[in-house]
């Protein structure tokens, strides 16, 4: 592919080869592999019915909402282990003021986003000011937030679960932003013409697309735009690639990282808002291990653990693989005692396949 000029700096790169070198390519290939696997093992079981698809997309969407900003942060070379605890904390921040103090839901939501964003900024500040690994700093906040959540909730409510949010949120202006369904009319029409199955009581098998899926796609696109089309995106890659060199070139590395920590914290708050308004309750244990699931999704998506390389679209595929594998196993009829073994194996295979495809693509360039 080297052109006649024989100067490799100005060689022309074919569109295909450029496509092949994108970080999300391997993840897309891994996704195809996983889909083929389940089409064979669970094809006729309902996994790919409208209900089944919404089923795994909803699980993927919630994880994907976390994974997109986590991918950006990891590209910038940092980790945020506090997002899982932040979900539990944010859920309680939404539920307690509305259930116990009579705040309207919209006010609790704004309050929660503000407080979580603030804690994200503190995480970021602690990382850039102390120079400690973010792994350690946010591991600290992981525990502190869980403790704070438990202490506050038990102190105020005497319980560890707060329910009763449904009734309060019923007429709230912000409720449908987080817990509703979209395209209900379209779904009803598709059911009428027989493209979507019906339940025993004659209603369509799904009543709409959960709004969390729209958030997932929207956030992923926004993060992708940020990463590839904005100056901020260049700063992210520079901060994660070689922070000192970037600083010397005038990239505001500290500000970039702090902004990204705020973004991951806000994503956790969004996750919590969706889960609290959909389930109607908050629980101090919510979000347990989500920090690892988000990192897994990002890594499956082709982002390097060492920073400097990756994409938000890849994280979207990672979350999709995670959701499909999570839910797909139930449709295969495999004894669920083997669930985690199987899930771990699928993850490793998907990542191996992902890096195999990527290496092939890189070499063929």
């Amino acid at each position, binding site marked *: 592919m080297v052109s006649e000029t024989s100067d490799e700096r100005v060689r022309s790169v074919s569109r295909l080869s450029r496509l092949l070198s994108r970080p999300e390519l391997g993840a897309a290939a891994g996704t195809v592999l996983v889909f083929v696997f389940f089409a064979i093992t669970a094809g006729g*079981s309902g996994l790919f019915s409208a209900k089944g698809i919404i089923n795994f997309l909803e699980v993927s969407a*919630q994880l994907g909402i976390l994974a997109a900003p986590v991918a950006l942060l990891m590209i910038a070379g940092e980790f945020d282990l506090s997002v899982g605890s932040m979900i539990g904390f944010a859920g309680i921040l939404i539920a307690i003021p509305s259930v116990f103090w009579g705040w309207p839901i919209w006010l609790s939501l704004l309050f929660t986003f503000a407080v979580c964003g603030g804690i994200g900024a503190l995480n970021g500040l602690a990382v850039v000011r102390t120079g400690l690994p973010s792994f350690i700093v946010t591991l600290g906040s992981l525990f502190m937030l869980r403790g704070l959540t438990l202490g506050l909730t038990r102190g105020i409510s005497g*319980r560890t679960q707060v329910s009763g949010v449904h009734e309060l949120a019923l007429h709230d202006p912000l409720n449908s932003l987080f817990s509703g369904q979209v395209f209900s009319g379209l779904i009803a029409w598709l059911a009428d013409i027989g493209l979507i199955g019906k339940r025993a009581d004659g209603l369509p098998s799904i009543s709409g697309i959960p709004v969390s899926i729209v958030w997932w796609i929207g956030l992923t696109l926004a993060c992708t735009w940020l990463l590839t089309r904005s100056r901020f995106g260049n700063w992210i890659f520079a901060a994660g690639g070689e922070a000192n060199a970037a600083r010397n070139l005038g990239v505001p590395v500290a500000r970039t990282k702090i902004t990204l920590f705020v973004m991951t914290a806000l994503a956790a708050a969004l996750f919590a808002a969706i889960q609290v308004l959909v389930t109607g309750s908050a629980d101090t244990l919510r979000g347990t291990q989500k920090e690892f699931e988000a990192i897994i999704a990002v890594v499956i998506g082709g982002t390097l653990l060492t920073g400097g390389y990756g994409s938000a679209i890849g994280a979207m595929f990672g979350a999709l693989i995670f959701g499909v594998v999570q839910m797909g196993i139930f*449709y295969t009829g495999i004894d669920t005692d083997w669930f985690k073994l199987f899930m771990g194996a699928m993850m490793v295979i998907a990542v191996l396949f992902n890096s195999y495809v990527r290496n092939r693509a890189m070499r063929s360039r």
Partner: protein
Amino acid sequence: MFSLAKLVKPALGLLAGFTMMAAATTLAAADETRVVFVTHGQSGDPYWSVVKNGMDDAAKTLGVKAEYLAPETFDMAKMAQMIDAIAASKPDGMVVSIPDAAALSTPVKNAVAAGIPVIVIDSGGSKLTHDLGGLLFMGQDEFQAGVMAGERIKALGLTKAVCANHEVGNSSLDDRCAGFAKGLGVDVPVMNGVIDPTEMKNRVIAYMTAHADTQFILAVGASGAEPTLAALDELGLSGKVKTGTFDLSPTILQAVVAGKMEWGIDAQQYAMGYIPVAMFDLWKKYKIMPIADYPTGPGFVTKDTAASVIELSKLGKR
């Protein structure tokens, strides 16, 4: 105008006050009963949270000093060390749970040998308690409670059931599923769930899609029951496929009232927190101790009784 003297005087007064109060507490502490709970249940667990509320309420009402300790994770070695450490501090009574007899027998036996009265709650059972020299056992026999749940379902004429376990590997939840199968008299598959409510709900939907002939879903705790209710709602099967659960929450009780759930099984674990504190207080003051075990559950909360306990559940008493 700001004046240092103005500030210092009240501060000194306050300090003196605190010192006197501290002295008074120390004096009172000498004959105040001190009870320590060492259990395997983290206080973040909604079930154990109710136990702790019982303990706190009893301590406040009776003027007893009560402490609650539990390892951060299900760590029996850590719990054994905690029991040893508390025994060394010579409390007037110790309340323990024994989810693992092999790991905890020795420290409990040592505490008894050191002259500390011990009450066993929740897990361990009657025989083990008395073998180790404990005074009595309080709690719900999980297997037996499962059997009773199974018998109730059998009486309804249902045979195809599933046990939705949101925390497989927790032995008391496993016992609930196993007892249920025994009571029903047929094999009951266990559906492996998770704490995350969205995933739990979607797993129930997936399970029901793949096993459409299922007639009854047993949830083994509130974290499994609430998503199960949501799943049945989404599938349009609410009330048609029957369901019941261990443990209570306001949402569960409302579902029982609305006829969406058959019953919630109440271990009445508030008593496991409250009563040992009272017993040890009587023991210290008058050497009074009940002579028999105290089964707290299972109490089946059904449509007739659910409404009356909703408020209590919100307060963390049920």
